[in-house]
């Protein structure tokens, strides 16, 4: 253990910048996934065909092993190549399903009596979406964001394999050199990030919940 602490103290600067890099990857990918996933989730509330298609495609991305997904993207022009951009695209695709699915579920699993009243009172579909479905579903949507964030923090360690940097750099080096200190110097901060994100988003989620 003392070896680990000494190692981490010695490489403080590197760990710090790798953590920041990691956070950057996650934040950009999450922002993109939310910007795509939430509006798409709103769009599929009343469109059954599009819904099956969107949830199906997002589901397929989730089933591709993450390392393979990074690999598949490399040869694709514009979004591919070695480095951050490819990693962010892959992380976004990965985060999409939980956000999309929770947005859809959050917006649709609403007390039918409430939706019936809203319609009968002469609210338009847009008014029902933004003034009834969204405020009542936002805690569920946020739960999807929370799940996606935790997945993304973990999967982002693999992004180091395609040269995107982040905490995965230590992990891959640690595995290659059979060096536990190196491995843990990447794994511990990544785990801590996940725990903190889970805690903060969990608190926000409880606050948004309407009982």
């Amino acid at each position, binding site marked *: 253990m003392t070896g680990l602490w000494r190692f981490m103290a010695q490489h403080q600067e590197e760990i710090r910048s790798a953590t920041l890099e990691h956070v950057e990857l996650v934040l950009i990918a999450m922002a993109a996934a939310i910007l795509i996933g939430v509006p798409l989730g709103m769009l599929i509330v009343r469109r059954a065909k599009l819904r099956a298609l969107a949830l199906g495609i997002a589901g397929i991305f989730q089933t591709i092993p993450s390392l393979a997904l990074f690999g598949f993207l490399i040869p694709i022009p514009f979004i591919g190549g070695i480095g951050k951009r490819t990693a962010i695209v892959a992380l976004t695709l990965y985060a999409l399903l939980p956000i999309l699915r929770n947005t859809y579920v959050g917006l649709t699993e609403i007390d039918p*009596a*409430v939706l019936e*009243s*809203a319609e*009968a*009172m*002469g*609210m338009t579909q847009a*008014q029902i979406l933004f003034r*009834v479905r969204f405020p009542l579903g936002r805690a569920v949507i946020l739960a999807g964001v929370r799940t996606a964030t935790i997945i993304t923090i973990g999967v982002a360690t693999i992004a180091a394999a395609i040269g995107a940097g982040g905490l995965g750099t230590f992990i891959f080096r640690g595995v290659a050199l059979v060096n536990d200190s190196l491995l843990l110097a990447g794994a511990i901060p990544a785990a801590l990030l996940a725990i903190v994100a889970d805690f903060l988003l969990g608190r926000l989620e409880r606050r948004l919940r309407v009982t």
Partner: protein
Amino acid sequence: MTIAEQNLIEFRGVSWRPNSGADAAIIDDVSLEVPRGETLVLLGRSGSGKTSLLKLINGMHWPSKGQVMVEGRATREWDAIRLRRGIGYVIQEAGLFPHFTVAENVGLVPGLENWTKEKIATRVKEMLQLVGLQPEEFAQRRPRELSGGQRQRVGVARALAADPPILLMDEPFGALDPVTRAELQREFQSLARRLEKTIVFVTHDLREALLLASHIILLEKGRIVASAGPEEFLRLQHPEVLAFAASLDVRGGAA
């Protein structure tokens, strides 16, 4: 006055099948007239089509055959949003918006109709007083902080807020305990008389029908099998009327 003006609501040979005609008819060739100011009670067992009939009035359903006229115009010719904003709607569990306060719930339709804030606030107060809730005490509460009876009162206040000429009520007191139900029925009876609204009220409770109705229509399998004022209703000899009358006797009878 023409007939169309006298009858605020009129069904002309209306049938309704869900899924644009693929399924069996839920409403089967119904014709009826609701004169202005009447409280029409639609009575029937579960599945008799009374709720579907109600939803044909405010364009939640559209007739598969025939026409539903509201204020002399077929519902199909109405803009659905306009039609619904002119018709109050109260359902069993009230369907209040849980994320809105009582005041926001009651003020919703006036807000949709772009009333000014002051006008809405005044109206909300009036409406809460009308249904027997002190505005100071209740306006800022959430629906979850209300009892079932209070929620239903708010539901009525919300339906009346924009002063619609028509009020549709789908078993509004059905989920309440018997004491609260009797209380609300009595208050609603005097309220309905004062407000001079045209009301269509759905229930499976004959006692409630006799208490509130100026006219009762009995539905069975989507068809009208009896139609009479509350005084004559129990004298009708149709088997379904007798079945309902028997339900009164079992409970120690008002008949």
